[in-house]
């Protein structure tokens, strides 16, 4: 951000840019944005950043401590841990995108149906969401993996299903608000069909809220998926998935503690980044929070 942008006269209409500046004024949110940006850049340029192929065995001696040639050390097969962590960022972003995408798509559909239909459909649908919500994500995810079998793909589906109620509930509440707005009544009066009203009128209006909700859900999804992989129920070897790498490092615990450091720091930093980003966004959108500062 150059000084010019900050001092330039702000048109009254640019509420969005004002919000964005408020967001940048929040130091935590900026740190979060930087962490997430670093993660995205790492994932995008992984082949250029990583000095070795993440799967190449014997890139160095086995179980060597971090050094200049192997920044994070090597694992039991002599694979370069730095390269593995770098490539792991791709998996983490993919897991986050797919798990959150599934949760968002299913949650949105259920929330729209429940909120729009009303009556007994609403009661049944939302009651079922409550049932799923009352269990912890871990249990739902475990049950889903137990049925589908352990794999990274199934872990992403499991995390998506497990976190879905969060999205369904917020979507439902947002739809109820939209139904009270004049445009809704107008479209009903104009004789628009159900599909037209839901897809062309309600959906575009609730989508921005849901996208923000999705940012808040990313860290939960990453942690849950890493947990499944750690238990051996998600990513399978030789994948450089961070949760799985931690699990593999367990066996070399006392001989090569660095095997647990790099992937652990990577997960924690990523989740921290998304949490800070989410907090920042929430603060900008919730005026009550802002007033308190």
């Amino acid at each position, binding site marked *: 951000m150059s000084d010019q942008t900050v001092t330039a006269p702000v048109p009254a209409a640019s509420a969005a840019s004002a919000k964005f500046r408020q967001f940048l004024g929040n130091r935590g949110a900026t740190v979060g944005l930087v962490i997430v940006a670093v993660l995205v850049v790492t994932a995008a340029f992984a082949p250029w950043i990583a000095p070795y192929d993440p799967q190449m065995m014997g890139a160095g001696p086995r179980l060597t401590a971090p050094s200049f040639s192997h920044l994070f050390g090597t694992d039991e097969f002599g694979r370069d841990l730095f390269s593995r962590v770098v490539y792991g960022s791709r998996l983490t972003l993919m897991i986050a995108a797919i798990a959150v995408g599934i949760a968002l798509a299913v949650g949105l559909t259920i929330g729209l149906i429940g909120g729009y239909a009303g009556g007994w459909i609403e009661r049944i649908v939302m009651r079922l969401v409550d049932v799923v919500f009352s269990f912890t994500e871990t249990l739902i995810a475990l049950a889903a993996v137990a049925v589908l079998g352990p794999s990274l793909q199934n872990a992403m589906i499991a995390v998506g299903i497990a976190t879905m109620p969060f999205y369904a509930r917020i979507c439902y509440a947002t739809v109820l608000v939209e139904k009270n707005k004049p445009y809704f009544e107008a479209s009903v009066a104009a004789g628009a069909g159900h599909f037209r009203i839901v897809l062309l009128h309600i959906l575009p209006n609730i989508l921005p809220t849901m996208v923000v909700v999705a940012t808040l859900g990313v860290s939960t999804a990453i942690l849950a998926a890493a947990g499944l992989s750690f238990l051996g129920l998600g990513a399978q070897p030789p994948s450089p998935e961070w949760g799985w790498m931690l699990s593999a490092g367990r066996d070399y615990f006392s001989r090569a503690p660095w095997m*647990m450091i790099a992937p652990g720091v990577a997960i924690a930093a990523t989740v921290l980044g998304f949490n800070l980003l989410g907090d920042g966004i929430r603060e900008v959108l919730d005026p009550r929070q802002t007033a308190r500062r």
Partner: protein
Amino acid sequence: MRRYLVQRIAAALLTVWVTTIAVAMLIHIVPGDPVQIMYAQSQGTTPEQLEEIRTRLGLNEPVWKQYAMFMGRILQGDFGQTIRGKQPVLDLLIGRLPNTLLLASVSLVIAAVIGIVFGFIAAYRRGTAVDTSLMIIALVGVSMPHFWLGLILLFVFAVNLAWLPVAGTDWRSLVLPAITLGVANAGIIARLTRSSMIDILDQDFVRTARAKGLKRGTILYRHVLLAGLIPVVTMLGLQFTYMLGGAIVVENVFAWNGIGRLAIQAIFQRDYPLIQGFILVFAVLVVTVSLLMDLLYAVLDPRVRLS
């Protein structure tokens, strides 16, 4: 009050009932032939034996009849036998349950003490460096995967310093898993306590108390802490169910013999009767805890109690 109770109990029963349907259907959603998958590891099972198992499990009956049979058995406390070792599923789960409950309860106490103290201090010193540092610590705590924290503690205190055992069944083996789960959840409680206390600190009655010349300690304890804790206490119930979920992972890091460790083994061995039993027992546990919390809330909050 009575209406509230009836509603809550009905909702709890409904949840358990929906779970029994899901659990009974589990075996049908599994891709492929569950019987074949379950017995794939044990060699020398003839097609006749597989057929015999199918008949025994009732898999040749129509779905509704299977569910009726399933419910009939469950209601009599018969959760079937494990595939490996042929042990009664319910006995096995009930035997492991106290370990999980113990771990979750001790962790909850640790999380509550750390979280409330941190949150309260941060709220009281709002806007200062103390507040910022405590909240950064809390956020890092929220962001750290439990299993990683567990591995680090295990490495430092059990392997390097050898102060505590790596695994076991006595109280000394409980220390590290309980700290792991407690610390990992303290962050959320600290953040909630802080915002709840800040709300209270801004209230008129606190200013009145100050104006009356009450001692600072009295104000903070009687007016702020006790009032600000109500939402925190409600949250603790929800936290306890999260602890039970988190315990599944932490038990596996520390080889703590709770139902979570059993469940993961069951998933790997595709021991479907055990998986079904685990989900049901866990569901009943979570529902009971939520129900108890709602009842406690009803007793604590006069608005609910008197309605």
